[in-house]
């Protein structure tokens, strides 16, 4: 862009070749609405981060890293009632700073690096969903930084980022009440509202409504919910949430396995 001296200059504007392509994308094939794509999860892969996790579900690839706890930057805290279990008073609790970014090559169209509003909204959604799970009272006046990087968007990006972020926090040894598992849903346009679990990018692009649910599986509590679009009657949204929560529960054993493997690897690598 013209005023940005910090990056190498390119053309003023550019268009993707897909705009001029003759053929359209094929319609996504009909499929079982409750199918979850196979997930590959690995924790503890970055050497410089305190905790990290990589999650791959279908075409969606997300990498998440956690650093901290570090001294919190702002210090305008008062005092308040102390929490239970030796935790700090409410006003002195730790903070979770989340950052969500999309790689420029992650979507169909290239997105120039300064992400803009959507990334901030998703970062806020990440923070809201992860806060209930982390024992922030045990990190007074400290901040934990969670950064999620979306390498390829194959659908349900926010859900994958949520799951990866929770795995990274667990890998970093941050005290948590439970993991957070995310699941995406979308509803195709049309009269009959069928919600599809774990949509692919094509299904998401054609969707009339989308929803991401975040669940804490063991406590069975919903940690976050973000949805938008025309979902039809209220029962339809309730049905979607129920479907999403089931999906999260089914995903949980894979994540447990991943953390156990990472802990074993860490144990084997540490000097005796």
């Amino acid at each position: 862009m013209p005023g940005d001296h910090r990056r190498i200059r390119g053309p003023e504007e550019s268009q993707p070749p897909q705009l001029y392509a003759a053929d359209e994308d094929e319609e996504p094939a009909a499929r079982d609405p409750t199918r979850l794509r196979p997930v590959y999860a690995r924790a503890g892969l970055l050497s410089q981060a305190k905790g990290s996790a990589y999650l791959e579900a279908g075409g969606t690839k997300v990498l998440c890293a956690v650093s901290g706890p570090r001294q919190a930057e702002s210090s305008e805290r008062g005092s308040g009632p102390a929490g239970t279990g030796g935790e700090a008073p409410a006003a002195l609790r730790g903070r979770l700073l989340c950052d969500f970014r999309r790689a420029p090559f992650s979507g169909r169209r290239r997105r120039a690096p300064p992400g803009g509003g959507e990334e901030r909204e998703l970062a806020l959604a990440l923070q809201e969903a992860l806060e209930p799970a982390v024992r922030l009272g045990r990190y007074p006046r400290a901040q934990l930084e969670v950064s999620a990087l979306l390498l390829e968007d194959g659908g349900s990006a926010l859900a994958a980022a949520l799951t990866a972020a929770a795995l990274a926090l667990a890998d970093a040894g941050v005290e948590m009440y439970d993991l957070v598992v995310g699941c995406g849903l979308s509803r195709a346009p049309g009269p009959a509202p069928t919600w599809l679990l774990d949509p692919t990018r094509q299904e998401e692009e054609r969707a009339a409504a989308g929803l991401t649910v975040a669940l804490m599986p063991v406590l069975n509590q919903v940690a976050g919910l973000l949805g938008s679009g025309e979902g039809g009657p209220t029962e339809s949204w309730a049905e979607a949430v129920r479907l999403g929560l089931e999906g999260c529960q089914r995903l949980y054993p894979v994540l447990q396995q991943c953390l156990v493997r990472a802990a074993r690897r860490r144990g084997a690598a540490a000097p005796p």
Partner: protein
Amino acid sequence: TVEPLEYYRRFLKENCRPDGRELGEFRTTTINIGSISTADGSALVKLGNTTVICGIKAEFATPPTDTPDKGYVVPNVDLPPLCSSRFRSGPPGEEAQVASQFIADVIENSQMIQKEDLCISPGKLAWVLYCDLICLDYDGNILDACTFALLAALKNVQLPEVSINEETALAEVNLKKKSYLNIRTHPVATSFAVFD
């Protein structure tokens, strides 16, 4: 380590380094090509722990007015906070800018890709290759890893066939027919440090 210089000197006396390498030895290098399907070309390079991923997206643009027969190659190196705690989120810091400029110079000086090859119709339409390099793990020697990732990704890029329709003067893209780029030279970067 309490005395980092002394620690290093002890190893250098035996002509090796703390991780067991010889003085002229590279770390284990692995490369994974073409894993990002949304990008036109991609490569992931690991030099020991240092990990860099390069994704290339090709778009159309009008060629620059002073050189109407050339396309663009726009590199961008990103050092996000997830690769190391020394980086903060926000606009590119000094190190990222230096790295981006280094990669731009390597592309220009090595002539690895002739910008004339990227021109489709002089003065009207040319390809612009946005080369985005993201460091995922910063464990030193970032420039070598970036150069390697860029080269591998460029060799992986497949551009669809484009023709200009004479009547409508619009481009017609055939996504089914793709061809590789013509990479003329293969620059390889090696970094050295002088100790004491």
